[in-house]
C-alpha cells in the first residue's frame, strides 16, 4: 500500500510549505500545473518540473513518497516514449525510420515535453496532498470561491476514497493472511482473486455510507441553506501567502500571453532559438 498510503495521508512536518495557507498551496498547484500543461517544449517543461521539485523539497517531505511512485513514473515514461517517438507522424527531421515507424527530432522533443508535464503534475499533486490536511484542502477551495455544493461533493469524495483505499488494503492483508496469494499467477488469475476483496469492500463501503448519511441527516444538514452560510473553520492568509500567490498568478498570466499571443514555449520556438 506504499504509494497510496502516502498519497492520501497528510504527513505532518514543520515546513515553510506546511505553514502556507491552503489557498496558496492550491494556487501553487494550479498555476504550475497550468504552466506545465500549456508548455509545448521540453526545456521550459523541465524548468517547471524543477520548480515543482523545489517546492516539494521545501515541504521537507520524505523522498520515500516520490520513490514509492517511481515504478509508475518509469511505466509512464516507457508508454510516452513508445507512443510519441515511434508512432508520431508529424513534422520534424527524420532521425531514423523502419517501415511505418519513424523517429523525428520533433517527436523526441515532444516526448520529453509530455514526460515533464506529467511528472510536474504528479509532483505538485503529491505536494498538495502530503502537505495539506483534507480539511485544509476543502477550506482552500472554499476560499478560492468554489460553490459550496461542489466543495461538499469534493470533500465527501476525497474522504471516501481515502477511507475506502485504507479499507481495501486491510481487506487485502486479511485475505493474504489466509494464504490468498494476490501476486501469484497470470494476469487474469490475479484479477480473479480480487473477487475475494470486492465482497468485503462493498459491504464495508455500504456500511460506511449508511453511517455517514445517517450522521449527516441527524444533524439537519442541507446543502441549500437560507441566508449566508458561515464556517466554523476559517484559514487566514499572511503576507508571504499574498506574495507567493500573486507572483505565481502574474507569472502564469505572462506565460499564457507569451504562449498563445507570441508563440513562445513551443518546439518550433525552441528550434528557432538554437543557432
Amino acid at each position, binding site marked *: 500500500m506504499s504509494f497510496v498510503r502516502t498519497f492520501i495521508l497528510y504527513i505532518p512536518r514543520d515546513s515553510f510549505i506546511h505553514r502556507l495557507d491552503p489557498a496558496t498551496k492550491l494556487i501553487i498547484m494550479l498555476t504550475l500545473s497550468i504552466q506545465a500543461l500549456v508548455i509545448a517544449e521540453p526545456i521550459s517543461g523541465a524548468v517547471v518540473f524543477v520548480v515543482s521539485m523545489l517546492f516539494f523539497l521545501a515541504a521537507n517531505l520524505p523522498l520515500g513518497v516520490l520513490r514509492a511512485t517511481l515504478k509508475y513514473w518509469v511505466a509512464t515514461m516507457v508508454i510516452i516514449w513508445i507512443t510519441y517517438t515511434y508512432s508520431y507522424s508529424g513534422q520534424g527531421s527524420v532521425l531514423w525510420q523502419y517501415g511505418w515507424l519513424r523517429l523525428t527530432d520533433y517527436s523526441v522533443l515532444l516526448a520529453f515535453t509530455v514526460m515533464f508535464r506529467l511528472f510536474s503534475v504528479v509532483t505538485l499533486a503529491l505536494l498538495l496532498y502530503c502537505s495539506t490536511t483534507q480539511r485544509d484542502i476543502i477550506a482552500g477551495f472554499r476560499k478560492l470561491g468554489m460553490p459550496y455544493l461542489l466543495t461538499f461533493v469534493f470533500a465527501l469524495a476525497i474522504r471516501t476514497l481515502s477511507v475506502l483505499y485504507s479499507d481495501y488494503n486491510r481487506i487485502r492483508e486479511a485475505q493474504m493472511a489466509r494464504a490468498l496469494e494476490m501476486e501469484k499467477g497470470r494476469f487474469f488469475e490475479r484479477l480473479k482473486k480480487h473477487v475475494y476483496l470486492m*465482497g468485503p469492500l462493498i459491504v464495508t463501503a455500504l456500511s460506511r455510507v449508511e453511517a455517514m448519511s445517517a450522521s449527516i441527516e441527524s444533524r439537519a444538514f442541507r446543502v441549500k441553506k437560507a441566508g449566508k452560510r458561515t464556517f466554523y473553520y476559517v484559514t487566514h492568509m499572511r503576507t508571504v501567502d499574498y506574495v507567493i500567490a500573486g507572483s505565481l498568478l502574474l507569472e502564469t498570466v505572462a506565460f499564457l500571453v507569451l504562449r498563445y499571443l507570441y508563440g513562445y514555449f513551443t518546439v518550433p520556438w525552441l528550434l528557432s532559438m538554437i543557432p
Partner: protein
Amino acid sequence: MKSSAPPIIKVEGLSHTYPDGTDALEGVNLEIKRGEFIGVIGQNGSGKTTLVKHFNGLLKPTKGTVLVDSVDTREKTIAYLSTKVGYVFQNPDHQISQETTEAELAFGPRNLGLSPAEIDHRVKEALRSVGIEHLAARHPLLTSKAERQMIAIASILTMKPEVIIVDEPTTGQDKKQSRQTMKMLADLNAAGHTVIIITHDMSLAAEYTMRVIVFHKGKIILDGAPKSVFRETEILRESGLRPPQITRLTQMLQPFGFSPDVTSVPEMYDEFKRVYGRS
C-alpha cells in the same frame, strides 16, 4: 513446555520504516515462547500492529530479523507463514467473502491446496473448537459482531497455525460477549496455541494474559508478568496508559497494608480478607 525449547518467534534488532518515512519500530528485541498468552498494549501508533504484522510476513523488516519457528520471515511467503502464525484482523467484516460460515472457514485451507476431505475435517474441527457449529450454514454477515469475531478466529484455526494473533479481540462487543471471546482464546491457549492479543483493555490483559508487552513510540518499554508491568505506573503514565481500575484502587490503598499487585476482583477480595484478617 521445557524452557530450553527454542522460541516460536524471535525478533532481533527489528526496525521498520514505512515508505512515507514513518519510523514505526526501532531496534525491537523479543522472544515469544511456545504456549504463552501475551497481551501487547500501547497507544494508537505505538507500533503494536506493525510488530505483529512482521510475524506472518505481511511486513518485512527494514532492519533486523524476525524468525518464526527458526525460519527467517524474509525467506518465506505470507501463505507459508500463515500456516505458522494466524492473524485475525480487528474488523471481522474485512475478511468475510463467502456466503456460508462453512465456506468462509474453508477459504484458507482451499488456498493452501488441501484435499476436500482434509478441508472438511479442519472446518468441522474449527467450528467445534470455537463453539459455532450452529452457524455453519448461515451467512456470516447475518450473525452478531461477536459471532463474526468467532467466525474470523475459526477461519484462522483452519490454517492450523501454532500462533494466533488477534487484533483487538473484543472491540464492539458487550461485557458478556467479550468474556466469551476471551474464554475461547484462553481455551485455545490451554489447548497448546500461543496466543497474542493486541488490546487497549488493561483489565482483559491483566485477567487473561501471562505476559504483557508495552509499546511506546516504536519501542518496548515494559515486558513481563501483568502484575510487574502494572506496578510501573509512572512508566505507563508517560506512555499514556493506566493500570486496570482494580489495580489503581489497591495501589491507592497501599498505605493501609494492601498489596499493589492486585489485578482482579477475586484477588481484591482475598486481599481484603488478608488485611482485615476475616474469612
